[in-house]
């Protein structure tokens, strides 16, 4: 609790809120629609993917409420992308601050993550609206959704801390991460229903990815129980805990690396 008080001291909270505020003000600076873009961007992407994959390629016929299922996956994946990409450049981007003032370094990465969380919140409202339009039956399992989002957040936070510290030394990371995210988008069952993959081993491998596990579980809990989850694939075996282990490993590893590098950010940027 004392650690918590120290981390979220009055000064840190004030600075955090001010950094997030600035982030939001600057993000849509000079655009007509402003904040609306936070919602429009994923919606437009959704429309494109929906037209291509659902209307033309006829994917997901076996899954009820497939459009909502698709949108929810896109929103969660977008959150992961946005948070990691923005955090990756956050330390370097705030180099002017880091070189001239003593503030907790992690606050900068943390503020990027909060901005992404706020966007996620807005996008989830859109998802909820679609759920109503689509007459999705809400199960009690929806209560697990927030916990699964926390899992995604912690995974993204670990990666963000690691990448932002690494980016200070190696600027190539920006491009590498972009490619990895692109690959990740297709390795994660976002567009295609998992039933399309018939090879059982491949299905198991796909589920080792915490994003795949989390997105499928979130869909299961909130949209349709037809969503194939890690529990189904491994039939309750202990393997199903591997993704959580990866999340934990990433978080601890990211924090440790960030902490070891933080004191030399000012001179390396």
């Amino acid at each position, binding site marked *: 609790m004392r650690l918590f008080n120290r981390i979220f001291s*009055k*000064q840190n*909270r*004030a*600075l955090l*809120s*001010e*950094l997030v*505020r*600035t982030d939001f*003000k*600057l993000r849509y*600076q000079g655009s007509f629609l402003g904040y609306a873009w936070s919602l429009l961007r994923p919606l437009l992407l959704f429309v494109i993917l929906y037209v291509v994959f659902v209307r033309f390629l006829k994917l997901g016929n076996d899954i009820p409420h497939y459009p909502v299922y698709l949108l929810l996956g896109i929103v969660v994946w977008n959150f992961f992308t946005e948070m990691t990409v923005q955090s990756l450049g956050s330390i370097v981007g705030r180099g*002017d*601050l*880091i*070189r*001239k*003032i*003593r*503030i907790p370094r992690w606050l900068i990465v943390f503020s990027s993550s909060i901005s992404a969380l706020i966007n996620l919140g807005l996008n989830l409202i859109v998802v909820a609206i679609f759920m109503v339009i689509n007459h999705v039956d809400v199960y009690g399992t929806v209560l697990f959704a927030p916990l699964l989002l926390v899992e995604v957040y912690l995974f993204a936070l670990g990666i963000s801390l690691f990448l932002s510290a690494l980016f200070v*030394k*190696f*600027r*190539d*990371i920006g491009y*590498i991460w972009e490619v990895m995210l692109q690959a990740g988008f297709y390795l994660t069952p976002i567009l295609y229903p998992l039933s399309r993959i018939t090879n059982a081993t491949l299905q198991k491998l796909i589920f080792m990815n915490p994003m795949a596990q989390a997105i499928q579980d979130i869909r299961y809990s909130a949209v349709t129980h037809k969503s194939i989850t890690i529990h189904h694939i491994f039939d309750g075996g202990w393997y199903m805990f591997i993704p959580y282990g990866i999340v934990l490993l990433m978080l601890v590893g990211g924090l440790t690396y960030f902490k070891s590098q933080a*004191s*030399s950010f*000012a*001179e390396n940027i």
Partner: protein
Amino acid sequence: MDDVAIKVDHVSKTFKLPHEKQSSVKGALISVFDGGKRTYETQQVLRGVSFDIKKGEFFGIVGRNGSGKSTLLKMLAGIYTPTEGKITVNGKLTPFIELGVGFNPELTGRENVFLNGALLGFSRSEMLAMYDDIVKFAELEKFMDQKLKNYSSGMQVRLAFSIAIRAQSDILLLDEVLAVGDAAFQKKCYDYFTELKRNGQTVILVTHDMGAIRQYCTRAMMINDGKLVKVGDVETIAQAYIALFSDDRSANDRDSQERWGNGKQKTIDARVDVSDKQLTITITFQAYEDIDSLLYGFTLYEKTSKINVLESNTKRLGIVSQAVKKGEKTTIIWKVPNILRNGEYAISSATCDESALTYYDWLNDAFVFTISNKVETAGAVNPEVHFSYGK
């Protein structure tokens, strides 16, 4: 120990400087295969610096560009960590070393005030309470809803300064704040410094301005090439700093009325007697220590342009100067033809050791005089000119 605000104990700082900036994975891979040799060159910016700053001191840090003083300040502020040694801070330190940290040109003045305030550790409600005072002090009431990019640099500095002085801390760090802003702003800075000094605040000021050092600081130190040269009273440090530049011998660094040297012997009187044909320069020195190795010199220059017109010293003339005893007064006389054109002139008087490496005293503007009775000329010098027809 209770009266010490900051204790710096054998602090060194080494930077790793990449030869070519290896901020790419390829570069890192190459350097791994090279055994890391090509990647970095280390540069020691500070070497074993130790000093104490007491509570309530107005402490000046001087040194030329690249001497390591800003690095030292950043370590005091906790922005850099020392490679070796330890810094102990007793009290709350301002976290910033510059005004207007984090100012964003795309935000309005008002938004920047809150952002900057948060960086200094103020909550939004505290900032709201202080907001009007800050704006009033900066005299920017009409501009607060404009974007910062539309502010003049002077306005930005005023805004930054009025926020910065709200920072509640025991120890204040200031780096070159005086270098920016117009005369009116500097006056505000000075008033603020005076108030700080009166309140017994601990202040650490890094500056090139010897005037500010002399006026405000109670003690000062000089660093050169990353080493602490001297800690002491303000006058000693100011003179040592000026002496740094005399080694360069670059005329542009010399300001009038300046003096440097170790003070073993000093010019105590100088005058120039002007006749139509001759200039007689009479200089009296006093020795403060026994000196064996001596060299006297003078430079005569145009007062405003600082162009040297005449210069000589005993070594150039092949004269070995007599040794002097402590307390002894010596008068020397230089005689040169009066070839000066009309104008205002000054002489500087110098005394140093025979090798001209150690200066005892160098005094600019030791005597200022005017020549006005010469005939006009477009030449640089104006010696007596004769005219006759050839047969």
